[in-house]
């Protein structure tokens, strides 16, 4: 009798440390963030914190700059993650399939090295590459095309930088997925007279569909919260031209000292991330049916 209950208690007990750690370091900050979003907590300027209900969200609704930042975030996510990293990663993985090992190693090595560079260093590399006195203009100088790319085309600049940095991840995911596609299927399709494009569309893509969805979900969530790269390259400027929601959030919290408002924005970002995830998870389920 006791032998049946004791292990169960021990089993539950064994979770206690993990649960406690989760509560303290995972749920704790999250609950604090949700609570702060409904207060006027400030970095300085007032000692007490008042519960102000949904005021922060009402302000946000009427804040044109917030909507602008949300739009830029969407452009950034779709441009750099969904289209850029995802497509480029798939393309590289497809092109590398079945090549000679030296070429494979060289190309993957180069792409992955961009990924291993710390975010701030990557941001600074691109800053010095695109800046008015930078390398790109050194090359373009004679053509009269030189300009400060960070100033004239800030969104394009940060999107390019993020594609450069993040493509390796998608490439690795797709390389793994493509390894699982049985070569016999390709051969059979080829024998049946399918062109390369038809083989890709009707054989390869359906088979790696789940990897595509998983990859999309991961890179979307990563890119949604991207801060360091943009901050280093443009600080959200000039003006507000590249001020995505994480940048605007930082500015409101730490430069205008409105921690409560900043946290409320973070909460909205969290919800948006959740919506994206839901959509992708939905896609996986549909695939399973």
């Amino acid at each position, binding site marked *: 009798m006791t032998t049946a209950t004791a292990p169960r208690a*021990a089993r539950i007990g064994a979770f206690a440390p993990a649960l406690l750690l989760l509560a303290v370091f995972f749920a704790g900050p999250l609950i604090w963030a949700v609570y702060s979003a409904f207060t006027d907590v400030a970095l300085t*300027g007032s000692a007490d914190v008042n519960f102000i209900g949904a005021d922060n969200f009402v302000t946000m609704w009427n804040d044109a700059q917030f909507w602008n930042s949300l739009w830029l975030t969407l452009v950034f996510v779709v441009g750099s993650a969904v289209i850029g990293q995802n497509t480029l990663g798939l393309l590289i993985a497809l092109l590398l399939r079945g090549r000679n090992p030296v070429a494979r190693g060289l190309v993957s090595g180069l792409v992955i090295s961009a990924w291993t560079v710390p975010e701030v260093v990557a941001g600074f590399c691109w800053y010095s590459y695109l800046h008015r006195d930078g390398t790109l203009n050194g090359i373009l100088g004679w053509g009269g095309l030189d300009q400060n790319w960070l100033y004239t085309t800030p969104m394009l600049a940060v999107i390019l930088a993020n594609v450069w940095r993040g493509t390796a991840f998608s490439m690795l995911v797709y390389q793994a997925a493509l390894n699982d596609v049985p070569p016999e299927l390709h051969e059979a399709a080829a024998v049946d007279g399918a062109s390369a494009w038809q083989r890709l569309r009707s054989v390869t893509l359906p088979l790696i569909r789940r990897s595509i969805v998983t990859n999309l979900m991961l890179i979307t969530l990563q890119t949604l919260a991207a801060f360091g790269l943009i901050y280093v390259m443009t600080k959200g400027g000039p003006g507000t031209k590249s001020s995505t929601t994480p940048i605007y959030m930082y500015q409101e919290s730490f430069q205008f000292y409105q921690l409560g408002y900043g946290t409320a924005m973070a909460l909205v970002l969290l919800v948006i991330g959740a919506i994206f995830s839901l959509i992708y998870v939905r896609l996986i389920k549909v695939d399973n049916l």
Partner: protein
Amino acid sequence: MRPKLVLAALTALTLTVASAGCGGSDSGGDDDKTITVAYQKFGTFIQLDQQLQDVKKEYEAAHAGYTVELVPIEASENDYYTKLSLMNRSPKTAPDVMYEDTFLINTDIQAGFLAPIDEYLNGWADWAQFTDAAKAAGKAQDGKTYGVPMGTDTRALWYDKTVFAKAGIAEPWEPKSWDDVLAAARTIKQKVPGVTPLNVYSGKGAGEGATMQGFEMLLYGTKHTLYDDAQKKWIVQSKGFTDALTFIKTIFDEKLAPDPQDALDPNWGTKVNTELFPTGKLGISLDGSWVSSTWIDSGSKPWPDWSKKLGYAAMPTQTGEAPGKTSMSGGWLLSVGANAGDKKASFDFVSTMLNKENTLKYDIAAGQIAERKDVAADPRYLESNPSLEFFTDLVEVTHFRPAYPDYPNVSNAIQVAMEAVMTGQAPVDEAAKTFAEQVTSAVGGPDKVTSAS
């Protein structure tokens, strides 16, 4: 038995880690015999760091058993305020003594970061040497004093005499209105290619420097200001405000000012004074009295000829209205933190740093205008810098920022408006409208703001 033991050990470990993470609420980490001093060190501003190193030795020699821990915060101005606030938010990291901008003092008092020091000041003979204006700088709305001033400053137009000679502008240059300033800049642009005619700090990169050296030097030369003292309301709409923004727009549109992309760089101020002026690449710069401290022997860019090459002129009012010139004054204080373990010892450090000799040394090194009568009268001070007399005289026409708790938000909104206008992202009226909306929501609603005509 064994799994249970492991479990118990794990649980104990977790609890320890968790409770250590939460931390104690008292000044657990630093003991009362260690005095932490937080201050800014950035770009060309290295004088305070140099001097505090010396004062640390002096203090430790005089107070056996006490140690001074210097915490230089290497960050631009806006980031310095942020980092200092973050340090202050937890008693474990809050410094005992901090370098505090006069404009932020009410904000920080309201947040409960600073300790009143009246009882110590009463016992400090030197306090009588401070001017009344200086004593007021550290006094809060509650009537208590929260900081000892280190020196003040004024602002005016610096100009390159060689550039002026090439452009054919007569010296001494004494502009009587904004139009005179613009006319001189246009002449330089036309006659001296390769030289930036006029530098006015603008946008978020320059931080408070853009608000104060740039925008407020213009605004306080019009009929309007930022705050209505009688009504106790912020002025969010006025002709002076739009005129000042229009001035900014004009100099950037006509390319009299530096390229916006350069001007928006947080390191722009350093570049102006270490590169452009010393190499004769800048005509006029609206800047502070302290910039010559960059060029003296102990500065970050020694330039022995600066006093021969550069002239200075007071910033005129918009159309020459009395008193004909204008200036802005700020300054910094040393304050004692509300969480200081030993407030008396912390104050002793402040009074050592700001005794006559050390103030004299600092004011000379950092190009500050003395706020101690004994320092101001000292021949060593008067002879230290040829520009000192000019900038000290501007104290007569100077203005102070409305240093209320909401000021930092208003200042930030001004920088946003300047940036929108200088980059051409918004026309002047739209930027002014955004400013009015932003300030109205930041200061707590329409009944806290007003407009002036």
